[in-house]
Structure formats: structure tokens, C-alpha cells
């Protein structure tokens, strides 16, 4: 839709968007409460509340054990927060990229984020000891993942830039080529890795939110928040871009700058997400789809709702991942797809049925 829509038109489109945002926020709030309250270790609601109140310096209504406090404050709380930020960043990045490429098959991985992160992590694990990097062990892998994601995405952007403009099709193909290259190089490093390194690598690729601590949140949180704040500001430009690049240019949208800003923000958000949680699939691809199916392509609605819903999905999936097989944990990537895919299919089937008998 047009960015300068008449007031009546705007209110007509905004109303369902606002309702949807409220629904998504309610879902997120519910998943956050459940995520903090439920886990392998039983912490009754009253005790959980007491732990939180006591931490805030308020009188606690009930006693609790030191173990309950440790689990709640230092394991679950940072984990749930990181999960929400990661989910929001992945989902909103996906929505922005799908708008930029005007292609529903795009997700952050396609512009090289995951391939770059995997390759850099593989290099860090395999060549780390030789390069005397082991001194930086605690932050080595997140930093490598983030740097790799950013570097490969920049190369993709560079390759996709023709003389004066960024060719979206070229960008996509460059992304595919670099993905193939990145994963091939990762494969080569896997072959060179010794047995311990191989295991480290496998576990990194499985992903998960087990590494979410307060200190990790301090490092990665700002990087995840930045795109969450800045991407919605590009929604008008993205809306005009739906008409086509030339049309957008004629309508006065600085298309080139918009593209570069979008790709940079996505690389930042998705790169940070990959660096702390590994490759969590599905969220960046399908959550934006779900929102678009229900609410249409207006990015002013799509971006925030997709972000909130992505956060709710990851927090919810992580909750299931760590409780359903307790005391063991399932890989979260399996769960995001397991929770999200049936819902998505149901939406698709409904949309199809409606198209048949309107």
C-alpha cells in the first residue's frame, strides 16, 4: 500500500494491525511467564514470585531455596530474554529481507549469515589452537560467528552491487554462491578437524540457548536490539519498494541507501542471533509468512508483529525443548519447526479453501 495513504484508508488498515500486535504481545507475555515459571526444576509460582521480589529488594511472600533462586535468576531468566531477542531479530530480519527481495523464499541465511558464521566458527575451532587463540576461548566462538556472518554478508552485498545500483537478483545469486562456498569450506575444515574439534563443531551447529547467561546477554543484547529498533523505521520504504524498484525510486525513496541499510541491519541482528544460539531455522522464514497471510504485506504492521511473534515462538519452543525430555534437552531448531510448521500449514490450507469458495 502507499505510504501516503489517506487517513481513512490508514485507519482501516491500522486497526487490525493494532489488534494483531496486542494479540502477539499477549502471546509473548504468556510465553515469557511460562518460560520463567516452568522448567525441569519445579519452582512453584509463589516461590518464583518471591525470588523475583526478593531480588528487587521487596519483601518476599514465601521462602525459597538457594537452588531455586539460582535456577530462576541465573539460568532461566537470561535464557528466556536471549530467546526472545533472538526470535525477534531472526523473524524481523526475515520479514525485512522478504520485503527487500520481494521474494517469499528469502531468509537471513540466504544472504550468507549462517554460512559465514559456520565457516568462522569452524576456522576458530580447527585453527584456533594453531593461532594461539585459546586464550580467548569463552568469547571466541560468538565473536567468530558474528564476524563471519557480517563479513560474508558484506561480500554478498558487494558482489550484488553493480556499477551504480544493487541488483537484487544478483544479490540473491551471490548469496547462494557464497553459501555453497562457505558450507564447502566448512565441510573441508570438518574433514581436517581432529575428533574433539569435530564434536565441538557438531554441537555448535546443533544450536540452542544453553549458552545464554547474563554476561552473554550484555554482549549480544545491544546487537540484537539495534535492528529491532531500527528496522521498523524502514517499513514505509519497504512498502513503497513492493511496487518495484524503479517505481520506488520515482516516488522519492532512496532505494540504494535503503537496501544497504536493510542488509547491514539484518546481518547485525541475524549474525548476533547465530553467534549466541547457533542456527535456529524456520523462524526467519515462516513467521513473517504467517503474519503476511493474516495481515497482508504492510510492513508497518508486518515488522513489529513478526518480531513479537518470532520472540514468542522461540521462547515457547525453547520451553518445550527443555521440558519435554527433561532432564535432557532437545535441539531447539527441531522444536521451532515442530511448533510452527503445522500452524503454517493450517493457515495455508485455510487460505486455499477461502480462495476456492470465496
Amino acid at each position, binding site marked *: 500500500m502507499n505510504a501516503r495513504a489517506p487517513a481513512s484508508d490508514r485507519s482501516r488498515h491500522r486497526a487490525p494491525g493494532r489488534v494483531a500486535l496486542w494479540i502477539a504481545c499477549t502471546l509473548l507475555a504468556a510465553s515469557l511467564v511460562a518460560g520463567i515459571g516452568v522448567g525441569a526444576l519445579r519452582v512453584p509460582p509463589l516461590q518464583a514470585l518471591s525470588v523475583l521480589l526478593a531480588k528487587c529488594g521487596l519483601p518476599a511472600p514465601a521462602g525459597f531455596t538457594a537452588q531455586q533462586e539460582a535456577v530462576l535468576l*541465573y539460568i532461566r531468566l537470561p535464557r528466556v530474554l536471549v530467546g526472545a531477542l533472538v526470535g525477534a531479530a531472526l523473524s524481523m530480519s526475515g520479514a525485512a529481507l522478504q520485503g527487500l527481495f520481494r521474494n517469499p523464499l528469502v531468509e537471513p541465511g540466504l544472504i550468507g549469515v549462517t554460512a559465514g558464521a559456520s565457516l568462522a566458527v569452524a576456522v576458530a575451532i580447527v585453527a584456533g589452537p594453531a593461532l594461539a587463540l585459546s586464550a580467548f576461548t569463552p568469547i571466541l566462538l560468538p565473536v567468530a560467528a558474528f564476524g563471519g556472518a557480517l563479513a560474508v554478508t558484506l561480500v554478498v552485498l558487494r558482489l550484488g552491487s553493480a556499477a551504480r545500483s544493487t541488483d537484487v537478483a544478483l544479490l540473491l545469486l551471490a548469496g547462494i554462491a557464497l553459501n555453497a562456498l562457505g558450507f564447502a569450506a566448512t565441510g573441508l575444515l570438518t574433514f581436517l578437524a581432529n575428533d574433539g574439534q569435530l564434536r565441538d563443531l557438531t554441537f555448535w551447529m546443533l544450536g540452542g540457548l*544453553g549458552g545464554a547467561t547474563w554476561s552473554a546477554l550484555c554482549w549480544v543484547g545491544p546487537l540484537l536490539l539495534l535492528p529491532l529498533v531500527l528496522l521498523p523505521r524502514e517499513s514505509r520504504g519497504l512498502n513503497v519498494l513492493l511496487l518495484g524498484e524503479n517505481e520506488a525510486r520515482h516516488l522519492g525513496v532512496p532505494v540504494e541507501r535503503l537496501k544497504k541499510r536493510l542488509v547491514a541491519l539484518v546481518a547485525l541482528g541475524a549474525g548476533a542471533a547465530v553467534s549466541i544460539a547457533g542456527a535456529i531455522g524456520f523462524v526467519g522464514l515462516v513467521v513473517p509468512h504467517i503474519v503476511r497471510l493474516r495481515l497482508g504485506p504492510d510492513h508497518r504492521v508486518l515488522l513489529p508483529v513478526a518480531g513479537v511473534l518470532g520472540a514468542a515462538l522461540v521462547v515457547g519452543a525453547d520451553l518445550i525443548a527443555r521440558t519435554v525430555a*527433561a*532432564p*535432557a534437552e532437545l535441539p531447539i531448531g527441531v522444536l521451532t519447526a515442530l511448533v510452527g510448521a503445522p500452524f503454517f500449514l493450517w493457515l495455508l490450507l485455510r487460505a486455499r479453501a477461502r480462495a476456492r469458495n470465496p
Partner: protein
Amino acid sequence: MIRIRTTSMCLFSLLFAARAHAAGDAAAASESPAPAGERGVASTVDSARIVTLGAPITEIVAALGLGDRIVGVDSTSTYPSELLDRPRVGFYSKVSAEGVLSLAPSLVLADADAGPEVALEQIRAAGTPIVRVDAAVDVAGAQERIRAIASTLDRVAEGDALIAGMCADLAETRALVDSSDATPPRVLFLYARGAGTLHVAGTASTADTMIQLAGATNAVTGFEGFKPLTSECVVSAAPDVVLMLRSSVDSVGGADHVFELPGLAHTPAARSRALVAVDDHLLLGFGPRLGQGALALARALRRLPEPAASSSP
């Protein structure tokens, strides 16, 4: 699906972990400096509720007679069978802090490779002591590991008895080997996880150590550790016997299919159908049953047709 993944991962580790230890032992020791009282020495640890991370550790605790104190194990711990009903906290190097804590352990006994570090740190921060146990890739290491756990759990006498039993089994194995004048059979250790994932054991591998303890020769000498199988490597190794883990045999569809794997049909072992399958942890666990494993392997190798007879065309 989850089950399959866990099993395949635990075998993967069984096979590879030990080699990693060999190289990284010193590193592991320095990267996780255990606070005083955490390693070895009997101390004030309360061992009323133990979570064990690592199959050999579980076996040792059970063999020390403290199996009923184990309240949780990792997914690789499949022996002894009394402990199969214990809650499983996942693969030992991918445990969840809250999962372990939910079992309210008073002590976590963890393999040197257990982790991730973040989770162990969180468990420690919640007030549960963790005792790291060094890896074992040879007889001395296996005995040292028993001694360390026995002293942590204040069962020194029982630990010494276990070690004595292991030594007796090893002595019996040696006697059995010495009593035979036949040339030692050339053994190929084949690790399989389905017909698509095949590895053979070279020198300086856990399997190599066991083959030697059982008085046989590793047919593969060209490289160290485990490498993917190639037909030419197998044919040129010309093994008299193929040694496999029982789960590996199952994974390729049973003993009948082993000699259909690439290259194996053209070995002396194929002609005499000489296949030995041994329980996974018994053969490669380097736990308290190390001596029994060596003895079982030596006996199985002796029951086979004489290598000279089988290699004649």
C-alpha cells in the same frame, strides 16, 4: 528419532572421545583447574545423590556398590542394567544445567569431556559440587580413574578390590595369550553406524589398545586414530578377523551383511567368516570391566579358526 540420535551420538563419542583425550589431556586439565578438594582426595563431598556424566563413571560408581545413590545418568550410560531406569540428562557433553539440578544432586561426577562449560558453571554456581574425572585411554588411566572416584566417594577399599579384579582378568588374558603358540591373528576394528558410516581403527586408538591387550595384532598400521574406511585400505590390511561393536553389527543389518561392506569380501576374514562382536562399553569404555573386555576378546579370538587355515586359498 531422538533415541536414534542419542545412540548414534554416544557411539560417535565412544569412538572418538578417547582419542581426543590422548591429545588434549593436558589441555583439559589446565583449562578446568579443579578447586582444591574437587579432584581426587576424599573430602567433605556429600555423595547421597549422585549424577554421573559419562558411561565409565557410571559403571565405576555402580561397581563400587553405590549404584543406588545414582539419581541421574547421561545418555551414554547403558550399563549396568539396574540403572537403566534412572532419569537421563542427555548426552554428557551437552547437558542442561537445570535438567541436572532438577534431580537435586548433592554431587556431580563428570567426565573430563562433559559440558558445556557454561552449564557446569551454572550447576556449580547453584551450589552443587562437580568432580571432574580424567579420561582413560589405557590400563593405567582406567585404574587411576577408579582410584580417583573411589577416594572421592570414600570407598578406597572397594576401589582397590576393583583394580585387583581388573589386574587378575588381565593376567588371565596374558596367560591365555602366552599358552597359545599360533601366530597372533591380524584384527581389523571396524566401526559402523549404518553401512554409510564406516571407520577403521589405526594405531594409537582405543581399539588398538584392546586388540593388543587381547594378544592380537592390529591389521591396520598406516595411520593413527580412526579414519573412514576405504576398500583398498581394508584389502591391503588383509585381516584374519573383523572386530566390531555389537551396535555396529546391528547398524549394518546383522552379521550376515558385514562381509558385504566395501572391500571386506576380499579379506582372509571373509573366507572364514571370522567376525567378533563385543559389547560397546565392554570393549571401548575403559571402565571397571576393562579386564573382562580384554579377556572376552582374547577368548573370542581363540575360538576362531586358525588364521593359517583360513588364509589358504
